[in-house]
């Protein structure tokens, strides 16, 4: 109910604005919606990368110690090696800090971060849809005003 009330009062505001102001307002709203959608994409990318990391961890935890593997030195150079202790993992937590954790803690870290990103994503989706509806309203009112102006 409150959201509907807010949308109605916003519509009334827009009715009062002149054509120029309304055009500027619609452009501003469209810009904001684009920014928010970029943020949504960034969050989705980050969440995907974390899920990949989590899957890799899961796979790593299944490998026995001493298993033969190929270690990447560059993007096209691999050298043979053996898997050392797979119970300890180094986690990049940001600002150049790496934390040594056990496999379980590592998986827990990935899950925590994924959940954090999911809740951020949901919040941003909410804000985006609100902004988009305001921008669409502005567009409709703008068109109506243009029609009025061209017929008068």
């Amino acid at each position: 109910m409150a959201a509907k009330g807010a949308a109605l009062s916003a519509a009334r505001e827009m009715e009062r604005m002149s054509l120029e102001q309304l055009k500027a307002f619609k452009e501003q709203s469209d810009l904001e919606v684009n920014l928010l959608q970029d943020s949504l994409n960034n969050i989705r990318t980050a969440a995907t990368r974390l899920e990949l990391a989590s899957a890799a961890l899961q796979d790593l935890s299944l490998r026995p110690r001493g298993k033969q593997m190929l270690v990447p030195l560059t993007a096209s150079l691999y050298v043979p090696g053996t898997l050392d202790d797979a119970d300890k993992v180094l986690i990049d937590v940001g600002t150049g800090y790496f934390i040594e954790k056990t496999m379980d803690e590592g998986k827990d870290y990935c899950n925590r971060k994924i959940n954090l990103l999911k809740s951020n994503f949901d919040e941003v989706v909410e804000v985006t849809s609100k902004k988009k509806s305001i921008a669409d309203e502005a567009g409709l009112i703008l068109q109506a005003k243009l029609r009025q102006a061209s017929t008068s």
Partner: protein
Amino acid sequence: MASSSPAIKDLQRDLEAQANILSKIQKDISKNHQVRKQYTIQLGENELVLKELDLLKEDANVYKLIGPVLVKQDLAEARANVRKRIEYISAELKRLEGTLQDMEDKQNSKKESVLKLQQKIETLQSGKSNS
């Protein structure tokens, strides 16, 4: 011609000067926004790191990436470093907010003086063309 009156020329020069100052203030304001955005992002990242560090047991290993080298750090030291950075960034953000407020006030008063000048010029020009 009415527009070549020296009084109007002076006013127009003045208007140009004021308009230049106004656009410089606006550039400064948008730069302020940029820098504040950067700092806010860094603050968020550092707070995340601090949360992770606080969750650790005292004997956990922490490493810092310095160039291409991973250097073992003392947990207490790492926590203190991150806290200091958070304090520094918060102080910088506060300072920038104060500067922003100043600049916005200056911008508004400049806008007013530019507007007044424009009005003066208009009335003088319309006055000349009427006489």
